[in-house]
């Protein structure tokens, strides 16, 4: 296989990895703070993509055509809208169920994902058909030897990286992040220390959800297409990535995201005759990893009082 084709695969893989990582980071944040798997996360991503699309339509109608402005406003509007959505979900679904068995929350959020998906399909104008997401990023390429690096790939990769770094910084370097980590470690004590538990939970969910929204918009900008079902598979992959990497650990989530993308890419490369099998391959490896390391590659530190 020649170098340019390989490079193409690598860049695609990195894009995928970045998107998966963004989703996985959200999962891991929610889990860390509330011991909860918010399974609707993938579909929240989809809502973000649609929110971005709607913003774009609105901007076009309002006569704003500058692509840079559009992209920025798109991302901001989408992230803000979805952050609010995430907070609402946390307040009305997740928090009330926080004392129920973990299975209930998992299932409730799974169902919520379906509600979101079906709502978009049924209520968004012509929702069941894919939408053409605008080409807002520059079309140019940077030739590197035989290989053409798409500028938009580069921009998206850098953006994704920045978002992950931003989240990491917030979590590890700010007072808010300290509060989030405190709640994640020991909610009871955090409360007695004066931390507003509910507020922190809502903020965390808003934060994680906006990361997903950005991933959704990225997805739209890269593939130029969005549809109501895009969130389901992405959500499953993001979840699997967070788990494989080790729940509760941001680095694990990033690791898991890129690992999954690598598996898919390797699968596609190794079986060019049946690249559709790449997903089968990737998920099979995930199952095998779970059999080998039942609490993820970077294991969760839990202990049970006997």
């Amino acid at each position: 296989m020649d170098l340019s084709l390989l490079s193409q695969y690598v860049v695609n893989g990195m894009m995928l990895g970045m998107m998966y990582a963004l989703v996985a980071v959200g999962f891991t944040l929610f889990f860390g703070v509330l011991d909860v798997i918010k399974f609707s996360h993938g579909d929240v991503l989809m809502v973000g993509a649609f929110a971005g699309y709607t913003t774009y339509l609105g901007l076009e109608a309002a006569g704003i055509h500058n692509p840079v402005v559009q992209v920025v406003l798109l991302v901001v509007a989408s992230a803000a809208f979805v952050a609010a959505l995430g907070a609402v979900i946390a307040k009305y679904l997740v928090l009330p169920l926080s004392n129920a068995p973990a299975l209930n929350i998992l299932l409730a959020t799974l169902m919520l994902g379906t509600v979101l998906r079906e709502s978009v399909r049924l209520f968004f104008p012509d929702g069941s058909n894919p939408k053409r997401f605008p080409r807002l990023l520059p079309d140019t390429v940077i030739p590197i030897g035989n290989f053409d690096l798409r500028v938009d790939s580069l921009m998206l990769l850098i953006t994704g990286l920045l978002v992950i770094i931003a989240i990491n910084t917030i979590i590890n370097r700010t007072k808010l992040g300290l509060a989030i980590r405190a709640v994640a470690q020991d909610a009871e004590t955090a409360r007695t220390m004066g931390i507003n538990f509910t507020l922190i939970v809502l903020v965390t969910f808003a934060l994680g959800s906006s990361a997903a929204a950005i991933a959704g918009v990225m997805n739209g900008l890269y593939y130029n297409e969005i549809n109501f079902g895009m969130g389901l598979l992405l959500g499953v992959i993001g979840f699997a990535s967070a788990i494989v990497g080790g729940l509760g650990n941001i680095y694990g989530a990033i690791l898991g995201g890129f690992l999954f993308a690598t598996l898919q890419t390797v699968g596609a490369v190794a079986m060019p005759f049946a690249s559709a099998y790449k997903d089968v391959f990737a998920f099979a490896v995930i199952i095998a990893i779970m059999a080998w390391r039942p609490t993820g590659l970077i294991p969760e530190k839990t202990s049970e009082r006997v």
Partner: protein
Amino acid sequence: MSTKPESGAATRAPGPALLVGLGAVVLLTCYIVAFLMSEDESVVAGLIVAAGVAVLGAYVLGLLQQLRAAYRDHERLMHAAILLGILVVAWVFREDHFTLLMLTTAMLYMTACLGLNIQLGYTGVLNFAGASFFGVGCYTAAVLGSETAIPPLLILPIGGVMAALVGSILVIPVLRTRGHYAAVVTIAFAVLFRTFLQVNDALGGPQGLSVPQMSLFGWGFNSNIEVGDFYASFYMNYYLLALLLLIGAFALTRRVERSWVGLSMDATRIDELAASCFGITPSRWKITAFMLGNFMIGVAGALLGMMISFIAPANFTFADSLIFLSIVLLGGMGSVWGIALASVIVVLLPEKLQMIQEYRFLLFSALVILVLLFRPNGLLPRGRRAYFPDWRPR
């Protein structure tokens, strides 16, 4: 010293509770017949509201208590009455293809969900790939029916065995993982399985496969029943066979629950560590539940495949597995009658309310969320373990 507990046929004498119980069965049968007969959506909607009002009224009047007592004290009789009701409904709709098809589908879903219930409701094994194992049963029926001369009746248990075998691939990760990690395993499998079917041309690819009919001793199930003046839809064949399967699954589930095996399964689900300290081996019961449950799901799938005679990967997605799970949750984990009720609601309601066909997934997901928030034990929560219904020690 206490007296020896009453045993054997020492049941309570039939009283007003039994009358309430039998009356309820009769009422329910009539209701179902009316419900299935109505063509007009507003009539259907009206019937649903009426049902809600009736249940509320029964609750307020204390009749629900009587009903529970009737079932508890006269289980065999109540079962006989219910069976009679089911046969009456079959008779009324004997010429109606569509209704029989619907009812049979509901019964097969019920059977599959009883299998899922043994896994999740009793033993606590998370299975997000129920539709996949159902699909294994269907595809087994397709392949064996078309390519071999194996008698179709035998294909049913083989479908179950195939589902159990495929499930055994997942045994190690299922055993080693807990909670969310365990969820990933079967979710990954559900996605993997659908994709595998879709890209695999040997199994028909995205177009799917056709499934030959069920036949018994040369009697092909896909031909209508015409004996003299009597005529019945060919779906009646499937209806009766599905009923037999359901009765078998029901009896099996009951006996498992009402035994030391069921107790060990419950202990495994509730507290593995304490159970281990008393000799229970959680892995043994998880494997048993997983295999047995998948077997039941596979058998149900095989018969459904034969009945609808055409299957495709789009029938066996992760979303379909979630439907199975919703039935178990909606009805009540570990509750056989809850699952029966939920299966009927999930299958019959969208068909009857054509206007909600489109909104099917949305409505059910919303309903399950509401149940989880406000009635987490389900519509008909599981009752206490009654090892032998006519055993009343005091």
